[in-house]
């Protein structure tokens, strides 16, 4: 008699598989990633350069605190400039990206144009904002205009990609239906596609603005205007570390505030499009 509760394995005819048959691309990638992590970690820990962490922490608290608010009005001015750089560059990038995204959408444009545009977007995304800033400071000199150009180009790569993905997720049949009853291509876009994609475009643009405010804070390190330039000046002065702390606190406060505001607006937009959705 079999013990109660013990399950007997019934022959089902299900064929068993060898270990190598279970490997798919995803599993291989996970194994490769784990292997690289172990290898890299081992190499980094073998670095023999001396590092007295506690001394560093003591130095930080001694030199960087308390924050120096003596130049607070100047810091606020620079923060204002940072904000302006982010606003203008995001505005230009959103408008240019809308046009570029139409060309990069498979359901709207011919394949050759899609591939050409996507290649351009990939290239613009490859360079970090700091490198773009460095390039434009060479062209325009250390001015906020260099910052505007840098962040515009940087944003194009991301917004162009996001917008084209949004266009591709839309039902193009609505616009085609309007064309069949006489709409021209612009009207087909404005009445058949844009209203449905508008909220997503706003959401992506808002995210880009938040991102650009963070980026605008650091591109000044290479001379492209904004609070980063003040940060750079303060770091170069032996007595400026406490000012650095003040600047970092200001950046932190404004970035956290804008993040929360952006999240709230995006949540409102998402709920307006789809009241059942749960999203940030």
């Amino acid at each position, binding site marked *: 008699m079999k013990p109660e509760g013990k399950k007997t394995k019934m022959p089902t005819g299900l064929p068993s598989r060898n270990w190598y048959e279970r490997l798919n691309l995803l599993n291989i990638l996970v194994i490769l990633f784990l292997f690289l992590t172990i290898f890299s970690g081992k190499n980094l820990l073998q670095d023999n350069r001396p590092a007295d962490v506690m001394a560093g922490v003591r130095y930080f608290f001694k030199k960087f605190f308390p924050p120096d608010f003596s130049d607070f009005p100047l810091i606020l001015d620079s923060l204002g400039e940072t904000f302006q750089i982010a606003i203008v560059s995001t505005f230009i990038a959103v408008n240019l990206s809308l046009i570029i995204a139409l060309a990069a959408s498979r359901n709207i444009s011919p394949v050759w144009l899609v591939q050409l545009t996507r290649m351009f977007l990939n290239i613009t995304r490859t360079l970090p904002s700091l490198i773009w800033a460095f390039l434009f400071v060479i062209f325009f000199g250390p001015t906020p205009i260099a910052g505007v150009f840098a962040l515009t180009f940087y944003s194009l790569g991301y917004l162009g990609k996001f917008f084209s993905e949004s266009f591709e997720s839309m039902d193009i049949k609505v616009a085609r239906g*309007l064309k069949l*009853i006489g*709409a021209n291509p*612009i009207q087909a876009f*404005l009445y058949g596609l844009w*209203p449905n994609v508008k909220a997503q475009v706003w959401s992506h643009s808002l995210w880009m603005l938040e991102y650009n405010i963070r980026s605008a804070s650091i591109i000044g390190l290479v001379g492209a205007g904004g609070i980063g330039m003040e940060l750079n000046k303060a770091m170069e002065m032996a007595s400026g570390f406490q000012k650095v702390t003040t600047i970092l606190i200001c950046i932190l406060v404004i970035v956290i505030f804008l993040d929360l505001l952006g999240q709230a607006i995006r949540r409102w937009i998402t709920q307006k499009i789809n009241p059942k959705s749960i999203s940030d």
Partner: protein
Amino acid sequence: MISLRTENLGLQRGGEWLFRNLDISIPCGSIVAILGPSGVGKSSLLSCLSGSETPSEGKVEFEIQDGVVRHTDNISPDLGIIFQSLRLTDHVSVLENVLYGRVAQYGLKESIIGFPTPDKEKAFEILKDLGIHHLAYKWTSQTSGGERQRTAIARTLFQDPSFILADEPVSNLDTYYAGRVMGLFRNLTSQYGKIVLCALHDPQLISRFADFALSLNPAHPEGWNLREVQKKDEA
């Protein structure tokens, strides 16, 4: 006098003909019901007539006045289409969707400053006729299937075209509104001489409103049949 003609119209899909050698001539003031079981090619025929699908052979001619013939590529403002999938813009109001019916008459000005007030009033009147005026400013995505279908019908009625192609235009409507919509089509054909072709399933609606019935035959693509419908209420 307007008319709609097809000459040797045929559509092949996956190597098989859905219909072939379709030669019909529809006189002005007619409602034509397209009949046949699901998958027989009713929607495909309407797609060929509207120009959204290119026929494998043959041609479609719309005579918009005596001697003036247009084809699917230049008939657009005179051709109204009620799609089976409705093709409404979800995130704008019901009223705005109706106004899109006259998109061919609007230019950049309307895109920027909005649609003319008399047009809005006219569109609202049509919504009243169809019993959805209370939804005028509601997003289309927030309305029911039947309300969406009536919005699509209202868009075509507002467009006021000479030819209407409707793919199962009353499939989501109750008996009252199905009869009301077909009655509006009847009015357009008998009073204004327009031509309506619609895929229909309901035998009562067909016998009550259709002038002609075009049957497609799944077994014989060339075995289509166009016959005059005997009206029950006239008998």
